[in-house]
């Protein structure tokens, strides 16, 4: 019954959605690794104007990440190989989380190098009231041990989902890798193992070269591509996953405006996550939420959830 971004006099729009048990005032989250621990944006936007945020992926112990260079710009995108630098699960719970306004739903992203490490991190996060759900990062394309293998092999993924599902009873989202032949197959694995939802896509594995030094720009050699460049790939994968499973989907990839978000909802996403756009415009997520409402008003849509999966396909001709 909320109506963020409503123009005075315009019809109010029901923006609330439920992502696998996570109740959100609107479908706009921010993507893991692009919103820090949520504290950094206070100067630029009102956290209560978005659905919530997904924190930087956490590991059991603090992690210091890869040697620089860690980022490079590419056409309409950027690549990163941060290496899951994070404060560790305990510091997150005790130092970062208390700084977030209570009414802001937080999804904790979890990373590990083996399933048991994932599971233990999940356990520690499961009893924290402000944490409304967990997102398993099964798809980091530039961490050497673990990471991408979980997201690229259906059997390994199944095991990871099974173990983390056992470790928690709060809503569990699995974040999938785009670096696979069939995202539908991976989505089905998650559904079968009891995940409450799917987030996709993580970054697309990529390489950039410095022709002066004749070396990879990133010290890690490979990195993950994000930003508007990958949006049409992400949309395709969200649509394919939505055809394959019934559990809700968080659409991610190059979202910078309300219009972009509408496309993901139409393709079957229940919510979206704004990533790289937060760097370019630190108020982007709030503007995406406002843009969704503006679209709904212009189109006479009374509840944003009516847009979910509403894509019309042409008669095959």
């Amino acid at each position, binding site marked *: 019954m909320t109506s963020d971004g409503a123009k005075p006099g315009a019809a109010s729009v029901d923006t609330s959605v439920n992502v696998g048990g996570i109740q959100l005032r609107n479908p706009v989250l921010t993507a893991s690794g692009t919103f*820090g621990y949520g504290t950094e944006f206070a*100067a630029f936007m009102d956290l209560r104007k978005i659905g919530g945020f997904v924190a*930087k992926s956490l590991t059991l112990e603090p992690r210091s990440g890869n040697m620089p260079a860690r980022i490079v710009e590419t056409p309409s*995108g950027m690549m990163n190989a941060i290496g899951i630098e994070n404060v560790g699960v305990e510091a997150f719970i005790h130092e970062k989380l208390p700084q977030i306004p209570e009414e802001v739903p937080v999804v904790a992203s979890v990373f590990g190098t083996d399933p048991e490490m994932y599971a233990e991190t999940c356990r520690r996060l499961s009893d924290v009231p402000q944490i409304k759900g967990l997102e398993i990062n099964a798809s980091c394309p530039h961490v050497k041990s673990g990471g991408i293998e979980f997201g690229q092999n259906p059997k390994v993924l199944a095991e990871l989902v099974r173990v983390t599902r056992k470790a928690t009873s709060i809503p569990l989202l699995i974040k999938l890798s785009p670096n696979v032949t069939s995202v539908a197959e991976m989505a089905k694995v998650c559904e079968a193992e009891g995940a409450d939802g799917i987030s996709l896509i993580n970054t697309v594995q990529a390489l950039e070269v410095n022709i002066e030094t004749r070396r990879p720009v990133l010290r890690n050699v490979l990195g993950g591509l994000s*930003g*508007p460049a990958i949006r049409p790939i992400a949309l395709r994968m969200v649509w394919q996953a939505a055809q394959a499973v019934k559990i809700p989907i968080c659409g991610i990839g190059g979202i910078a405006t309300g219009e972009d978000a509408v496309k993901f909802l139409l393709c079957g996403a229940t919510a979206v996550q704004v990533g790289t756009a937060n*760097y*370019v*415009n*630190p108020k982007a997520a709030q503007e995406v939420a406002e843009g969704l409402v503006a679209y709904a008003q212009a189109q006479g849509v009374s509840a944003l959830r009516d847009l979910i999966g509403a894509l019309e396909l042409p008669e095959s001709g």
Partner: protein
Amino acid sequence: MVASSEAALAGSPTRSDAEVVFNRDEGADNWRMRLRVPGWPRQTAPGQFAMLTPGGLTKLSSDPLLPRPMAVYRVFTEAGGAEVEFLYKVVGRGTTLLSQAEAGEVVGVVGPLGQGFSLPPSKGKAVLVAGGTGVASVYELAALACEKSEVWLLMGARSAADLGNLEDFEALPLNLEIATEDGSRGHRGLVTELMGAAGLDGEEKLTLYACGPTPMMRAVAKLAAERGQRCFVSLENPMACGFGVCLGCAAPRSDGGFSLVCRDGPVFDACEIDWENL
């Protein structure tokens, strides 16, 4: 909701589309741009920077995608904001687009960001070593420092033309010395060679500041360590966000681990940096 006193000092950053007041070519690809930035805080620490987006924060094109970090050169505070001046060199796509912004058009601004310079101790001596675009970072520092300390400003460039417009610096009560690689102005050679010439080699109560190309800063840091002098450097790592969330700008620390150049810097005590791996 109440800003902490620390935040108030450094100035809480703003994000806004700023109007270009002027943007002019000062020769040799050096440009000077002044922006009217609504919401810019009353206090900017010398050495802070901003992220600039040609075309504004909701620009039409997503290529180039990322904002560009630029040191705050000078600030003229006004009601509800400030006029903020930047000195920049056109080196690639982002700075080319920046140079095409005309008076009245908008440039996206997020800033002021980062930690600035600590001033030299009152009545102390300070030597500022600036090379290339590093000069933009030290004007506010020089202006503040020379109110209470004796300041040497050593400037280096490839040739006289690259030095750009030095009027602002010449108006300050400091000792300005210049080195050019081709000898077209001042000392012929590297700016670090002036550091001996200043006759301050042994001076322990001296604070060194270095801004410029990494090899130059590394050389200054090494000298400072040898002489036991305090030394601050301002690093220029590639950045995506500028405010501590992407973790892209990490600089290796001498004690292991990383500092974020945008959040913990860009100014660092030189001895904190792992110069080998930078």
